[in-house]
């Protein structure tokens, strides 16, 4: 079991092991907050081996969908399966799924090392793996400091270190490049591509079409909580003059849908 955590880089020594049993299956997912239908009968699959972008305007339901995949929010209807099981049925969740959520998910008074050590203990992950992910994310020098004093880039790196902790086959990143400098953006982009190349499921949400064009090969596009397109970057680009035009045409329909639905 320990062998799963050996190795200094996220790149596995095993030659590309695509494991389709790890896929994410979203079926008829629906979530309502009061009068707002945040996610509306959403269905799609996320396959391993490629970076899948989860694209939609702000407020389109991306984060809500991510939270439902992780079992943090309970859907009103529909289901999510990861490798055939719901998140809450996973035996060692952090060894199967790693997630970077949009908001910070650590206590400002705790050190990065303490935060990761606590998470590692919860899933029977050896303490040596904490040092490995600190090294991978370039946080080793800052690991003993209060995480509350971290810059946005360092906080993102700590979130990524937590996601990689269990060496999971499925990775979720919610708006990972938000607020990062160009160097940080490049680092995350390369990391996601290398994780996918190792045969992992990599599912990345963004509202930035330009970023997705550089990172993702598959695209799930949503607007107003509904599926607008389940496609590839190449297919979507071919629909219009540019990928951005194609995206704006797609999401314009949800803007109209919203306008007619509003009382004004």
């Amino acid at each position, binding site marked *: 079991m320990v062998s799963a955590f050996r190795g200094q880089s996220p790149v596995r020594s095993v030659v590309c092991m695509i494991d389709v049993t790890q896929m994410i299956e979203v079926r008829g997912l629906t979530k309502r907050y009061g009068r707002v239908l945040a996610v509306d009968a959403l269905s799609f699959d996320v396959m391993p081996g490629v970076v899948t972008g989860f694209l939609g305007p702000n407020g389109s339901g991306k984060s809500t969908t991510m939270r439902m995949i992780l079992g943090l929010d309970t859907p009103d209807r529909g289901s999510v399966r990861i490798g055939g099981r719901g998140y*809450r049925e996973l035996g060692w969740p952090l*060894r199967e799924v790693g997630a970077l959520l949009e908001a910070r998910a650590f206590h400002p008074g705790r050190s990065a090392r303490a935060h990761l050590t606590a998470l590692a203990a*919860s899933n029977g992950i050896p303490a040596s793996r904490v040092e490995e992910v600190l090294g991978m994310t370039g946080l080793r020098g800052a690991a003993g400091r209060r995480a509350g004093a971290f810059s946005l880039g360092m906080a993102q790196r700590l979130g990524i270190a937590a996601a990689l902790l269990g060496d999971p086959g499925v990775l979720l990143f919610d708006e990972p490049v938000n607020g990062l400098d160009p160097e940080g953006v490049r680092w995350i982009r390369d990391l996601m591509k290398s994780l996918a190349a190792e045969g992992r499921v990599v599912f990345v949400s963004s509202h930035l079409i330009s970023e997705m064009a550089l990172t993702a090969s598959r695209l799930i596009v949503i607007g107003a909580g509904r599926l607008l397109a389940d496609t590839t970057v190449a297919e979507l680009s071919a629909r219009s003059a540019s990928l951005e035009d194609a995206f704006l045409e797609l999401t314009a329909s949800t803007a109209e849908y919203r306008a007619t639905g509003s009382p004004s």
Partner: protein
Amino acid sequence: MTTAAVTHNEKHRGHYRFRHAARMEWIKLRTLRSVGWALLIALAGMIGIGIAAGVNTRNPRGDVTNNILAGGALGSLVFAVLGALVMTSEYSSGTIRATLTAIPRRPLVLAAKASVFAVVALAAGELVTFAGFLAGTRFLRASVPHPALSQPTVLRAVALSGAYLCLIGLTGLALGAIIRHGAAAVAVVVAGLFVAPLAGLARTGAGKFMPELIYANSLVATQPVQGFTVSPWTGLGIIAAYTAVLLAVGGWLLASRDA
């Protein structure tokens, strides 16, 4: 069977248990600076108030032990606030999302958190009350009787005082799970412990169900208090029942609400 399938199975065999959740909660608890500070304040308060009460005890027929343990009011406030913050800081910092993705069985998370906190709070509670008692008895005047831990009623009073701090801390934790907001949880704790008795309810029949009154008139009493008929062990049972009910409600809400 393919290589990938073998790796997958080996890696994912087994399941997290209570001990994994408890280990996580123990690491989280001991890496929060506020825990150490709070316990230090409780220790200083129990010793300081114990000494002050010892010096000022003049009635030779009064309940000297009870006087010396008067710091329990401050101590219970500190423990309640600490318990509430241990839970609500998960929400204010966002740590709750990391916690619940690591251990998705939410009642297990609360059970582990409450258990770890209970062990630490009981040890700390006994430490601060015994320290306060010993400090207070050293400063007693020669004219009043000097209670000793060798007397069963005195030992019971001091030990129950520590247990009370632990239970009130757990109540704070449970309220934190229910309310999820630090300031609001602390306000409810203060209202329940101190405002309700001051609001004139103390003289009604409801008084014997109020934690602070049970503490002062029963748990730490070595002489019967007139008009207060709750025995120390019954009093402890009433407070433990409050704690258990609030923890159960907190666990149910944690499991049923979105994080």
